[in-house]
Every structure is written in C-alpha cells, then in structure tokens.
C-alpha cells in the first residue's frame, strides 16, 4: 500500500508495538513553531508533530492573519497561508531533521487555501472532513462544505506528482466532543473515510474521541476497526484516538488520570496514534514544556499497557453504526450526496448541534452506569434502549451542566497518582 512519510512512520511504530503520541500545538511565530516541533521530536516518546493553524486562517480571513503578523498581534496558531513557503519549509525542517512526521490541523469547513498551502510546502498529512468541520464549528451550508472538501481531496492527491502519497484523517469521531453516543461518532468517521476514498485518497486515518466510559469506548474502537476492515479494506489506514475533548479536569492529578486512561484505551482498542491533552487544558493554552510532559506521560502509560486479549461486551455499537452508514449509502452512490441528504432527512442528526443543516431532534445522555445513550434519536435508524440505563429525563439546563462536567468531576474527585504507569483507572459509578 502506498504510504507517505506520516503514514509510514505510524505504520512502523505500530509494527514495533509503540503508540504514536501527538500534541495539539500551534504558534504564529515561526521560531516558536520550529522550537515546538523540535521539542516534540526530542521527547522521550514516539511522536508525531502538529502544526495547528490560527482562527483567521481557518475561516479564510487571510488579510487579518497578514495584519496580525505585520503588527505583531498574537495568533492562536500557525498562519500557513500567510507565511511564505520558505518560512514554512524552515519550520518543518526541524521535524525532518529528527525524522518526525508532521500533521497540519485546522478546523476549516472551506479549506481550499489551506490545501493549496499544503501542496506548496509538501506537507503530506492533514485532517478534517466535510461533516466534522462543518456542522459542529461553522454555519457554512453542508452542501458547500461537501463540494469544497471534494475539490480539496482531489487537489491533495496531486502530491503524488512529487512522489508523495498524501494522508488524510477524518475528525468525524469527535463532532461536538461530548454527549454524542459512540455509534454516530464511528459512523461519521467511516463515512468521511469513504468520502476521502471516493475523491482519490489511498491513505487515511479514522478517529474516535474518548467519552465517559472505558468499556463502552473499547467496544466503540472494536466496532470502528471492524467497519474499517469491512468497508475500507483496500486503503492504508489506522485509528487515532483523541484524549477527552470536553470539559477537562481542573486538577493536575485528574487531568493526568484522564490522559492515562486515554493512553490505556488507545492500546487496548488498537489505535495507532493518540492525540494528547495537558493538565493546563482547563485553564489556558499549554506551553511547549507542558505538551512534552504530557506526551511522555502518555507514552509511559501506553508502554506498560498490554493489548486487550479478550473481547468486550457487544452492546450494539457496531450494529448501530453500520445501520447509520447504510442509511447514508442508500441515499446515493456518491457519499457526499448521501451525507447531505441524510442530514436533510434527519437520518444523521448530531445531538445538540445548532447548525441550520442539522435536524436537531437527537439527544444523548449519560446513563446511571456512566455510558452514553440516546435519549431521543430523532429520525435516525437507531433504537432508544430504555433498558440501557433507565428512562432518561428530558435534558434540563442543570442536567446539561452536570453531564458536560461529568468526566471532569469524576477525575478531579477520584484522581489516581499523577505518575504512570502504575496508576489505575478511577472507578466509574455503577
């Protein structure tokens, strides 16, 4: 299978039994960005580097990014379109010197200019997707995002002209980060992988974000692996796990406990790569040093965790994800058309997503056992299982606050020792 530097490095690490750990990191200043990549490359861990782009570049406001560079205003990420190609090459050379792969992360629903910059600078890995970067974080019509991402995928394959196979990761396993039952996360990332394939990609990664319950997450990762084997068998692919993307624990012990649980879940669930968060997460943007410490912590915990030897209980995540995927594929042979129609009809419906193209009928909740379940499924082809955790009450404002901070509260209150790998998973309520 063809692999660019990023995919090849992840595959090599996996063959060695090592988890690739990767930060979320971006600086407007090229020297800071270069220093960040150097520090990540030198961390005592198998790492991938990240260049996260700034908000102006994400929304296509290049004039504002150029202005900020000119007057020295701080940017919350690296403006890859505004910086000259030579500057970006100089930044990336730091990673190349250590043989570390680099991924550009952005968050753009209309990423044409960003992909053009990736092609100019030869960056072989990025991420996003027509659903995952449109519905949760923009008000761009879904149809426009689908068209834009189709063009960008096709353009990205031109990297092969210079002998490099591009790699694209779907962000579909995260969506709004919280309160979305796993089956929909799994379905959307697989569908985005199919969309990428339709538009020419041959090397992809599928994502899943850590949720409220380790056993449920392990089942979700098993379902995701099975669906990738069934539906994307001819592609080079791997699974990337995100450390919890919702409200983060406020204590250092709680934050490291949650990160450790993510590292163990990645190993047990067969993920090849883990996106790491730091104890600073609840308070501010982490420093380079904090990122390195978090990467090394995650790597230590992962190295001590044996891969799962027994299967997890099947509570139906696979069947539900498969039904959601088939509902989309039934609406058209073109995956993008199927996605647009599915959201129009509410066959896909992201809980609590306010985007005008989302039906907004679905609701997720946390059961008494700490698992995510459907309170309402709208017109999606999934069953609301009252046996899963008792009858869900309609979500109230107080209930929402409790649910959003459920994980943070658990880990802040029942924090394990801060240093791995001997720690144990905090007990979840039964």
């Amino acid at each position, binding site marked *: 299978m063809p692999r660019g530097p990023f995919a090849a490095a992840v595959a090599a690490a996996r063959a060695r039994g090592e988890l690739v750990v990767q930060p979320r990191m971006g600086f407007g200043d090229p020297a800071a960005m270069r220093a960040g990549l150097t520090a990540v490359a030198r961390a005592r861990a198998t790492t991938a580097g990240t260049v996260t782009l700034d908000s102006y570049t994400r929304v296509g406001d290049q004039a504002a990014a150029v202005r900020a560079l000119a007057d020295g205003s701080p940017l919350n990420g690296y403006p890859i379109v505004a910086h000259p190609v030579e500057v970006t090459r100089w930044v990336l050379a730091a990673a190349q010197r250590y043989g570390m792969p680099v991924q550009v992360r952005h968050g753009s629903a209309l990423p044409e200019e960003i992909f053009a910059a990736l092609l100019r600078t030869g960056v072989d890995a990025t991420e996003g997707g027509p659903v995952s970067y449109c519905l949760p974080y923009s008000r761009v019509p879904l149809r426009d995002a689908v068209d834009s991402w189709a063009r960008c995928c096709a353009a990205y394959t031109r990297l092969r002209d210079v002998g490099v196979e591009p790699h694209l990761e779907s962000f579909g396993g995260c969506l709004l980060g919280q309160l979305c039952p796993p089956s929909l996360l799994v379905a959307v990332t697989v569908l985005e992988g199919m969309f990428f394939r339709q538009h020419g990609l041959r090397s992809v990664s599928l994502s899943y974000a850590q949720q409220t319950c380790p056993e449920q997450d392990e089942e979700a990762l098993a379902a995701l692996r099975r669906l990738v084997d069934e539906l994307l068998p001819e592609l080079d692919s791997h699974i990337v796990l995100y450390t919890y993307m919702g409200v983060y624990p406020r204590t250092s012990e709680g934050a490291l406990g949650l990160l450790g649980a993510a590292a163990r879940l990645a190993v047990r669930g067969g993920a090849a790569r883990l996106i790491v968060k730091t104890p600073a997460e609840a308070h501010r943007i982490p420093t380079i040093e904090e990122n390195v410490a978090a990467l090394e912590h995650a790597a230590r915990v992962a190295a001590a965790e044996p891969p799962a030897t027994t299967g997890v209980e099947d509570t139906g995540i696979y069947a539900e994800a498969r039904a959601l995927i088939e509902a989309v594929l039934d609406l058209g042979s073109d995956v993008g058309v199927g996605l647009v129609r599915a959201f129009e009809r509410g066959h896909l419906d992201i809980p609590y997503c306010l*985007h005008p193209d989302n039906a907004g009928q679905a609701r997720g909740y946390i059961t008494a056992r700490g698992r995510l379940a459907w309170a309402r499924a709208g017109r999606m082809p999934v069953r609301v299982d009252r046996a899963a955790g008792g009858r869900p009450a309609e979500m109230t404002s107080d209930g929402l606050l409790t649910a959003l901070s459920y994980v943070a509260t658990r880990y802040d209150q029942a924090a394990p020792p801060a240093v791995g790998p001997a720690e144990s998973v905090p007990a979840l309520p039964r």
Partner: protein
Amino acid sequence: MTVPAPARPAPAGGGRTVLLGTVSSDAHTWNLVYLQLLLEEAGHRVINLGACVPEELFAAECHRHDPDLVVVSSVNGHGCTDGKRLAAVLRADPALADVPIVIGGKLGVAGRLTGTQVDELFAAGYTAVFDDGADRDRFLEYLGRLELPVAGRAA
C-alpha cells in the same frame, strides 16, 4: 455582573421572545445550548442562532423575529472586541435602537474584563454585561426584573 438598577418593579416572568447567539468569530455552542434550556425553563421562547453569527445576520434575525431581548454569549475571548462591533451594527439600525441587548461569557483573553472594557460594552449599546463569574441566578434575576419594552417599540 454589571446591570443598571431596574426602573420599575418586575413584570410577570416568562413569555418573552429571546434571540440568542454568539459573535462572528466564536465557534463554541455548548454555552448557547445551555442558555436556550435555561431561558426555556424560565418560560421564554428562544431563537438560537448558533455558532459564528455575522453581524448582518444578527440584525436580519432581529427584524425577522422582533425579539423582546437579545442575548449574546461568547467564550472564545473575542467577545469584548467582536461584541462591541455587533452592538454598533444593531444600534445603528433605528428599528433596533431600544431592544435590550445583553452580553455575557468569557469575554476577554485575559480573565475578567477591566472596568474600562465593561464601560466600552455599555457605550457600544449593551443593556447589561455578565462577565466571567456571573452566575445563573443573577442572570435569571435580571431577566425577571427587566422592564422589557414590548409595547411602543418600532417593529
């Protein structure tokens, strides 16, 4: 929280039309989901505009729904800067000169706003400012005692 003293006793709670949204640069929405539930539980009707609302869209939706109250919530740190621009656009419209507009959330990049920043938000046209740390009960109390100018306003 900084609110002007109520001019008159509280009217009966609930029953208002509230237009809810955030500033143009802010992609966060959990705050909006929460506020919608809170306002609906208090008996109000809520139109939730969601993420990244352009100023012109905010103004157009005001015309469309004729709200009794506009609530702007932002947590990305640009709320003070972008929020002033939003208020300027809304207040420049004669039909929106009197509608109460409140703003709240994490409005600055460096923790709580300064007194000067709060003054600037009032000067831009906000009726009340709920900076980081303002709690739910004080917001609800404000809603309860606000004399919302429903009648006599140009629609």
